[in-house]
């Protein structure tokens, strides 16, 4: 089995080089997936870098990224392979005059030449190192999930006319899920599970520093702190990392050095996407400005 990484630390450092700041858990699971040759099922709120993780791993291992975007109604011919029907027809037409038996044609038209590979088969057949990303796997129906099982556990695809195609090398496989439905036990069992949550204060600050050019350390710190405070409110949709980055970029563009209540309230619509959330955040920030009770609703500690 290909061992791509020396140790957990190496994974973390390599990822950091391509500006993906991983936590202990993320680096650990990626390392394990490599060693055990298992796919990783990445779950977590939207905008926490699930897809980005796959891209970054592809980048550091110098692999090609093959992406299968899942949607309701995805089927075999879109995920695995399809016979090139038109080309097969042409082939038969061309043969019509020639004296060839049915057997010749039938073996001929079900050969590699007429096979259209789709992402899963492509990843299995790849000669070069690849990373397979199966994005938003929770969107396919339960029945379609079964399509993935053979690929995920044995890294092979069975095509009735051609036989079983086995992977030449074990690709890194990432599945992402937004958890809109429970995935089947069979699928979960075949994967390592990684939950990516919102990063903690320090990591978020580092991410902002790494991803936003020209941001000052003080501003990044303030951004991270405000976002953390907002996430503690009960919101419909807490600000994600990508929204944090957007906000930081906006602030840099506006030439803001120091975030005050006014700037925060004016630009909070970049962080929050629901009107009710924005109202609540503004109310919360404004309540502070009036010097009201520090945190209504939060009981005293002790």
């Amino acid at each position: 089995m290909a061992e791509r990484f020396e140790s957990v630390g190496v994974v973390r450092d390599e990822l950091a080089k391509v500006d993906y700041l991983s936590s202990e858990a993320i680096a650990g699971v990626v390392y394990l997936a490599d060693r055990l040759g298992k796919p990783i099922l990445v779950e977590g709120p939207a905008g926490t870098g699930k897809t980005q993780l796959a891209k970054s791993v592809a980048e550091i291992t110098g692999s090609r990224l093959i992406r299968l975007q899942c949607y309701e109604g995805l089927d075999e011919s879109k995920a695995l392979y399809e016979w090139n029907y038109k080309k097969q027809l042409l082939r038969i037409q061309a043969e019509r005059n020639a004296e060839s038996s049915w057997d010749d044609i039938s073996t001929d038209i079900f050969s590699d030449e007429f096979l259209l590979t789709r992402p899963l088969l492509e990843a299995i057949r790849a000669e070069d190192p690849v990373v397979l990303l199966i994005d938003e796997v929770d969107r396919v129906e339960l029945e379609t999930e079964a399509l993935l099982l053979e690929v995920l556990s044995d890294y092979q695809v069975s095509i009735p006319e051609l036989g079983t195609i086995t992977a030449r090398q074990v690709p890194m496989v990432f599945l992402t899920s937004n958890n809109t439905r429970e995935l089947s036990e069979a699928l979960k069992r075949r994967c390592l599970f990684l939950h990516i949550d919102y990063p903690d204060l320090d990591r978020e600050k580092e991410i902002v520093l790494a991803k936003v050019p020209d941001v000052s350390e003080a501003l990044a710190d303030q951004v991270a702190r405000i976002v953390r405070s907002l996430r503690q409110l009960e919101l419909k949709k807490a600000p994600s990392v990508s929204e944090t980055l957007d906000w930081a970029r906006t602030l840099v563009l506006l030439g803001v050095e120091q975030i005050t209540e006014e700037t925060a309230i004016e630009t909070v619509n970049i962080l929050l996407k629901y009107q009710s959330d924005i109202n609540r955040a503004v109310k919360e920030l404004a309540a502070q400005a009036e010097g009201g009770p520090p945190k209504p609703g939060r009981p005293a500690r002790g």
Partner: protein
Amino acid sequence: MSPAQPRDWSKLPSGLQPWVATGGRRPWDTPVTTDGPSTSSGGAAPAQSASAVADPIVDLLAGFIVELRAAGLPVSLTENLDAMEAVKHIPLEDREAFKYALAATLVKNNAHWRAFETVFEVYFSLRGKQYDLADDDGADAADEDLDDSEGQPGPEGMEGIRGLGGAGGDALSPEELAELLYRALLEGDEGLLRALARQAVKRYAGMEPGRPVGGTYYLYRTLRNLDLDDMLERLMAETREESPAPLTPLEERLERDEFETRLDQLKKEVEAEIRRRLVADRGVEAMARTLRKPLPEDVDFMHANREEMVALRKALHPLTRKLAVRLARKRRHGRKGPLDFRATVRNSLSYGGVPAEPKFRYPRPAKPEIFVIADISGSVAAFARFTLQLVHAISGQFSKVRSFVFIDGIDEVTRFFEGVEDIGEAVHRVNTEADVVWVDGHSDYGHALEEFYNRWGKEVGPKTTVLILGDARNNYHASQSWVIRELRHRARHVYWLNPEPQSYWNTGDSIVGEYGVHCDDVQECRNLRQLERFVDKLA
């Protein structure tokens, strides 16, 4: 750390070294190759290293998995084997990595993470002589711990400790301890915080071996002595003073959040320390049993504490989403009806009159209309809240949802939910603004139902499904169960959901049986799992 590096167990930091040892067995007691137990990239032969890992850990891991299953986590055999395989690749002395390796292979649902973490902390807690309860060892331990934290980049707080010399943490007076703690919190020095939490537990919790007292008692004692209430205000005062310009409200808010996080951190450390000591005293299995935490979907509505309530609220949102998706799909797919002759003949025209493709009549079930009548008096309020929230969150699956709440008076609260994005907010308004008190604010099902019948009874029709939520503890008032009988005549279904365990029904002032005979079904509904199952069936 590179796994290929030869491992000398005795040189590990004292905090890490003994965590994996149980009952006197330590990995380094077994004949281990100098390469250490983990497979290095090109090092020890797999078989050899596998056995080296397996011996001390296999038993422990087996017990760990049994406990996970007992806590309700579905751990399959393959996952079990994966976990065994995974730990071979992880440097054993890295406790965090070990934890994540186990989590990645064993826990496949984020809601189960807390349960997993608790079991992990019990099974793989830090053990060793410095955690013994005996005092003479304790002094060394505190000393070592404080030394440990020196390695961390916590600059100023350490000077105070170094000043104390070899005497270690024990020599501190309570005032000095409090002062150090204050400094640690102010500067966010985690190493020092951890050491101080240990010292505080040792000093204040008053733990005695074999004493049958729960961990919460010790936690309470320790925290009371540390007096954290004032700490936050003091920290804020100091920050205000230190800053050159007066703090803007926003800054103040951020500082407060920061300190609260640190205080939480301290509490967690104290809890962890108490747990460690309890495990050392009582043994792993006993502790795992007492600490077992129900999964969010199994938490009893009526007895959930504040923390569990938060977990429940968090679990409710994805649940409603899943339920809505599932119900919508159920409606769309997989319903075969009888042959539709007319459509088949019509369709056969395109095949030259040959009925090649049979057409079926797909049933289009009418969406039910829901009336929720919920008791929101004290004990069952949480249950009513969750059910209202759930039903309204998936209201798209019903043609109409109307909700009524009562204690001894009854009020319609549908208006709170109309055109509101934030259902949590609406439920909050229901609890505070609805007019539900008639006489004394004690549940009176009889009066509330009678009033419901008089005011809204005519609107209940053959499409309506009536849901009544409550424990039917009527304070010995008249039951007026004829209302239910009448409702059942008018409505399509009448269901009663009772948040009490079935064995409590019809005891004391509970008269659920009296109402139950007139309902289509009376169901026990104590946790999210049962609630979800019921709603799934309903739509």
